[in-house]
């Protein structure tokens, strides 16, 4: 089975990008976005400590539940009240995410 999935990413200017990402390399969504040269700040490098990898998940997808750390970080950054908010660094890529659509949060840019 091909372990490559497609993800649609809308950047801060509203432009849509379709990115391809492997699911068998231990990558998370933040890393996949970054690997495709899209601007994503991700200051803490994926430790759920900065919230500058914030995305809003647009279409419904079966995603793993938030860890307490992820939820608390989103809360600290006042993002929890934006529906369908996630930290992209906490979403490990899986085949189920094929076709997922996300929008980059304000904090991912400058």
């Amino acid at each position, binding site marked *: 089975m091909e372990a490559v999935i497609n993800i649609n990413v809308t950047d801060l200017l509203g432009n849509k990008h379709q990115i391809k990402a492997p699911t068998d390399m231990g990558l998370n969504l933040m890393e996949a976005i970054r690997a495709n040269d899209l*601007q994503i700040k991700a*200051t*803490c490098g994926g*430790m759920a*400590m*900065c*919230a*500058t990898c914030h995305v809003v998940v647009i279409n419904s997808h079966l995603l793993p539940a938030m860890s*307490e*750390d992820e939820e*608390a970080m989103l*809360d*600290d*950054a*006042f993002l929890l009240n934006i529906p369908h908010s996630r930290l992209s660094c906490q979403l490990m890529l899986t085949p189920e995410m094929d076709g997922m659509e996300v929008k980059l949060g304000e*904090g991912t840019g*400058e």
Partner: protein
Amino acid sequence: MIETDILVIGAGPCGLFTVFEAGLVKLRCHLIDALPQPGGQLAEIYPKKPIYDIPGFPMIMAGELVSNLMKQAEPFNPGFTLGERAEHIEKMEDGRWKVTTNRGTVHAAPVIAIAAGLGSFEPRKPEIPNLLNFEDKGVEYIIKDPEKFRDKNVVISGGGDSALDWTIFLADVAKRVTLVHRRSSFRGHLDSVHKVTELAATGKINIVTNSEVTGLNGSDNLESVTITNFDTEDITNLEADYFIPLFGLSPKLGPLKNWDLNLHKESITVNPIDCSTNIPGIYAVGDINDYPGKLRLILCGFHEATMMVQSAYKYINPDKNLVLKYTTVSGVKAF
């Protein structure tokens, strides 16, 4: 006016190591940082995380690396302007640079080394309507001098390590400390969570959970805060001389954008030979700079600082030749 040889903007690891390298060639440094403590990202974001790629240290905690860098710089007696943001730059008649902070502190030096990392750490501010009106009049985002809070009524907001640590620290200083948290449980080090719970049990502090500070009241200075409970929707007023929201800090490039430096995205373009920028006398090292093949790693920043200081020396002393000496030969001559 504070005068020095190299004015370092940013007291992260690369700024601190600049002090050491400059000291070896007898140049003095003064550092400016928006944070109240040195260490940059290591101190603010991950002091208790291990780092594995510092040469010679199979593993070192970020906080410990900062302490070591401070110790290494100590013989060269660096000056610090902490809790202030370098804002404005100007060329003086004698050719030196004049840098003024957001608090009006003035510095002068022939050379500026920008070691600003990802930018100046700025506080995340909660959405409270008149928050800005009370800044410096009771609202504080960083704690520079804990004595300020002696025998005062203090309300702290937040649920992470800094909120917990300061609650514990101020419990012995302030008249009363109230910790307001939007959730029911605290994240942060287990030790700190225990300590805070203990302090609350003995009545030394108050903890208010599932609640948020939603209003600030006072005629000129802060006099009380309004606290709303999410579950019961109860609203209470609590006497407060100080309100300290601690929701973490995030870096913003900010004023450096207007310094006429060549930028690439959020970074300052430099010549990798010596980290010089497009403006003579201004250098940039560490995470803030950009050149082909740039890696944002501490070890690379150390190398950059070393190269940069050699070039800065020649810029300051065009007639002198610098001979590289091993520290094993020359030792560290304090000044």
